[in-house]
């Protein structure tokens, strides 16, 4: 039996939600798609680590170093368990952007190495002109620009799956866009701008059919719904800690162990080596191969606490709560005159990021009126500029509720939109 989300109780766990903004208005935080707020449990865990166990990990012969290493590797196990993964398959990075770069650089680095040391690389990562890389037209820049760069370095061609007017992927083109030339397919699970939840299993299936590797950007799905990385059918899955109640400064890359094994390092230096000579070095096994330098230990501890917090709520309950809020927000927006939703209007295969434009008003001006009511939303192109262009809008306003929001928060946002319309006389 699903235990419903108790918003009033949850809010008490988030100190920032107790503050006021702009002339003493209670904060209505509807910008969790950008970053989520953090509960006490996460703040306490980081602080406790610094107060009791802080030390370098995987080195040093003292008790604190042992405790810090346990905390770091324990966090890895907790976070891996949350997405159905093995700890050895989970790489800590700075954020999802770095995780996606790690994936893209595996290709450009292997391609560069193949010129001088062909035996040192796995051919799956070597690209040449004639090869293609496939993304979609709803990618966050973090899952677009690194692949453009990989193409520029290797001569491969970037292709993309286009969008329907409803904000869904145009899957009729799937088999022609992903073909025998395709070497890697990287797609977003849930769009941060449109809210669309994509059928990544089918897309990954098609990628594997043509022998391509599959990458999923799960930045906006893992914080909001139950996700087992194996179910996605991908080879690599990237996401960030800060959007799921965790601290900033920590991201994740899950990889099938066989694929991680085959990938060359990204950032190199200390901690990621096996042996080092003046002439050359050999590298540690994954995940350490991809964790050069002193890692983000306290952040990993904080993120493990965030994962426990979400686990206690239950991700099914989180998803059900957001589904309700999404349906409510879509309905309320449809009621408003002059408001157009950018993204799916039906609450099916859809997450809680809801973008819209208001006739005659620029999103910046809408956002300003929401801010005046204490409502925090994101305005702009949401790091998905080509997606905005696809829908013929320079920018949108986006509300993105989470576990600490309720229908009353959506109502206040609607009041803000109407206030802006009234003020500008549109």
């Amino acid at each position, binding site marked *: 039996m699903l235990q419903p989300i108790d918003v009033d109780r949850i809010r008490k766990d988030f100190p920032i939600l107790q503050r006021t903004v*702009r*002339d003493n208005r209670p904060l209505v935080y509807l910008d969790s798609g950008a970053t989520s707020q953090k509960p006490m449990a996460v703040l306490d865990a980081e602080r406790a680590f610094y107060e009791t166990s802080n030390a370098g990990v995987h080195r040093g012969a003292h008790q604190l170093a042992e405790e810090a290493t346990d905390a770091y590797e324990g966090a890895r196990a907790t976070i891996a368990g949350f997405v159905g993964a093995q700890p050895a398959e989970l790489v800590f990075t700075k954020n999802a952007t770095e995780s996606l770069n790690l994936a893209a650089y595996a290709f450009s680095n292997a391609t560069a190495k193949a010129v001088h040391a062909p035996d040192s690389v796995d051919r799956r990562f070597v690209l040449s002109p004639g090869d293609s890389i496939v993304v979609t037209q709803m990618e966050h820049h973090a899952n677009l620009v690194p692949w453009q760069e990989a193409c520029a370095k290797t001569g491969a061609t970037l292709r993309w799956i286009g969008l329907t007017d409803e904000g869904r992927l145009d899957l009729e083109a799937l088999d022609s866009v992903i073909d025998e030339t395709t070497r890697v397919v990287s797609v977003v699970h849930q769009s941060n701008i449109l809210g669309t939840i994509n059928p990544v299993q089918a897309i990954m299936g098609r990628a594997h059919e043509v022998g391509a590797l599959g990458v999923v950007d799960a930045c906006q799905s893992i914080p909001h719904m139950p996700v087992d990385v194996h179910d996605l059918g991908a080879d690599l899955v990237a996401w960030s800690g800060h959007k799921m109640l965790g601290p900033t400064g920590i991201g994740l890359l899950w990889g099938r162990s066989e694929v991680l094994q085959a990938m060359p390092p990204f950032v190199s230096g200390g901690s990621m080596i096996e042996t080092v000579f003046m002439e050359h070095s050999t590298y540690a096994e994954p995940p350490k191969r991809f964790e050069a330098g002193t890692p983000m230990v306290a952040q990993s501890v904080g993120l493990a606490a965030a994962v426990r917090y979400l686990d206690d709520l239950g991700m099914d309950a989180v998803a059900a709560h957001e589904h309700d809020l999404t349906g409510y927000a879509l309905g309320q927006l449809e009621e408003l005159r002059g408001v157009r939703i950018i993204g799916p209007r039906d609450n099916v295969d859809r997450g809680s990021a809801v973008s819209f434009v208001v006739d005659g008003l*620029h*999103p*910046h*001006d809408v956002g*300003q*009126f929401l*801010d*005046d009511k204490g409502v925090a939303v994101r*305005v*702009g*192109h949401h790091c998905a*500029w080509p997606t*905005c262009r696809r829908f013929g809008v*320079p*920018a949108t306003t986006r509300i993105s509720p989470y576990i600490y929001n309720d229908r009353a928060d959506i109502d206040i946002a609607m009041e803000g939109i109407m206030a802006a319309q009234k*003020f*500008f006389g549109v």
Partner: protein
Amino acid sequence: MNVEALYQDIILDHYKHPRGRQLLADPAGESHQVNPTCGDEVTVQVGLDSDGHLLVGYEGQGCSISQASASVMSELVAGFDPAQGDDARRAFVELMHSKGAAEPDEDVLGDAVAFVGVAKYPARIKCALLPWMALQDAEAKAGIGIAQEGTSTS
């Protein structure tokens, strides 16, 4: 400070009824500026008339603050000599960085004094400055006002 103080009537008026919003027939310099965080865009063109006074043309799309600022700017500086235009630009930049504490000089800034409230909203300062940055860049490309720039310390 509330939102109405940000959007003064002058700003709304210029937003709804932009002045001189068109490009020049024969510009000496042009600059296209984009605010990459929100996608606001403005193109400013400049030239000099036979008396050495500024000609200004522009077009753009974006929020009320950026577009009103372009309109106010073009109305203000068109007809100025380049040095006067520079003075106005410096005064406007200073106003934007004043955190709302400045007493803007209407003799120098004209309608642009209405943007004083913008300085209290850091996220909007860039919007207001966008056309002025385009003006500066367009003048530099046209070789207008370079002598003044060279001796300036701002």
